[in-house]
């Protein structure tokens, strides 16, 4: 390695900037467009972690990712006002998370209410539009509905448990390139 190359490399990490501990940065640097490479790097890394986890842990991978999602759900929702109304809790959650995950409560045209009762089950359909999980899977050419989707499953269940105190489970009904349909089954 030549000395000039090392000097050049060191030069790239030096500046005249005076940085004091009390100066809290008020915005992310660099700007969003320059963050693209970082975002792709994170997506690639996440994809590889999930692929490796699946290879080593097999079906156990789902339990790990579900747990991670559930923690995330509890973490986000603990600042919410506790309420019993699941439909309202979901709407609130959806507004707060726009950007990472955006979802809406959804019903087929024939149904009267968003809370559907069918075959002894009470459930709500959720359509996930923007989803960092889907983006990551498609970035890596991985199949949808696998362990990484379990994070979302855990996330919604954790948040609902935290807000309403009710137990729930989430079922993936359909995955698509633009949106995914999930069924939140209430217990």
């Amino acid at each position: 390695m030549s000395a000039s190359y090392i000097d050049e490399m060191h030069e790239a990490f030096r500046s005249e900037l005076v940085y004091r501990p009390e100066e809290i940065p008020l915005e992310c640097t660099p700007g969003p467009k320059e963050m693209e490479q970082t975002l792709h790097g994170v997506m690639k890394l996440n994809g590889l972690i999930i692929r490796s986890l699946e290879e080593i842990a097999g079906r156990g991978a789902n339990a790990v990712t579900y747990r991670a999602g559930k923690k995330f759900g509890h973490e986000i929702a603990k600042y919410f006002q506790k309420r019993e109304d699941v439909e309202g809790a979901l709407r609130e959650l959806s507004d707060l998370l726009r950007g990472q995950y955006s979802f809406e409560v959804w019903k087929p045209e024939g149904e009267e209410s968003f809370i559907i009762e069918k075959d002894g089950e009470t459930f709500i359909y959720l359509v996930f539009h923007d989803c960092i999980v889907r983006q990551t899977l498609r970035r890596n050419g991985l199949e949808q509905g696998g362990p990484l989707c379990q994070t979302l499953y855990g996330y919604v269940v954790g948040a609902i448990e935290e807000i309403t105190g009710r137990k729930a489970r989430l079922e993936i009904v359909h995955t698509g390139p633009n949106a995914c349909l999930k069924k939140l089954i209430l217990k």
Partner: protein
Amino acid sequence: MDIRVDKDACVGCGLCVKDCPMHVYELQDNVSVPVRPNDCMGCLSCHEICPAQALEHRGIYPARRHYIDIKVCEMLRKVI
């Protein structure tokens, strides 16, 4: 939701009928017909699966596409 099927392009394979979880499409005279367009939740699986690219959705919410590389798109734009 406004779903349009290009009748000349549709090959009547029925893949959209099988794939749609909300049973939006039906095959009529070997052409796919969106019989329940209001039940469509906009997943666009039918777009991905249609070999003839015969489908068009209007009034849909396009999900963010972070996985598309801006640099690759810039290069493609130059070529196309």
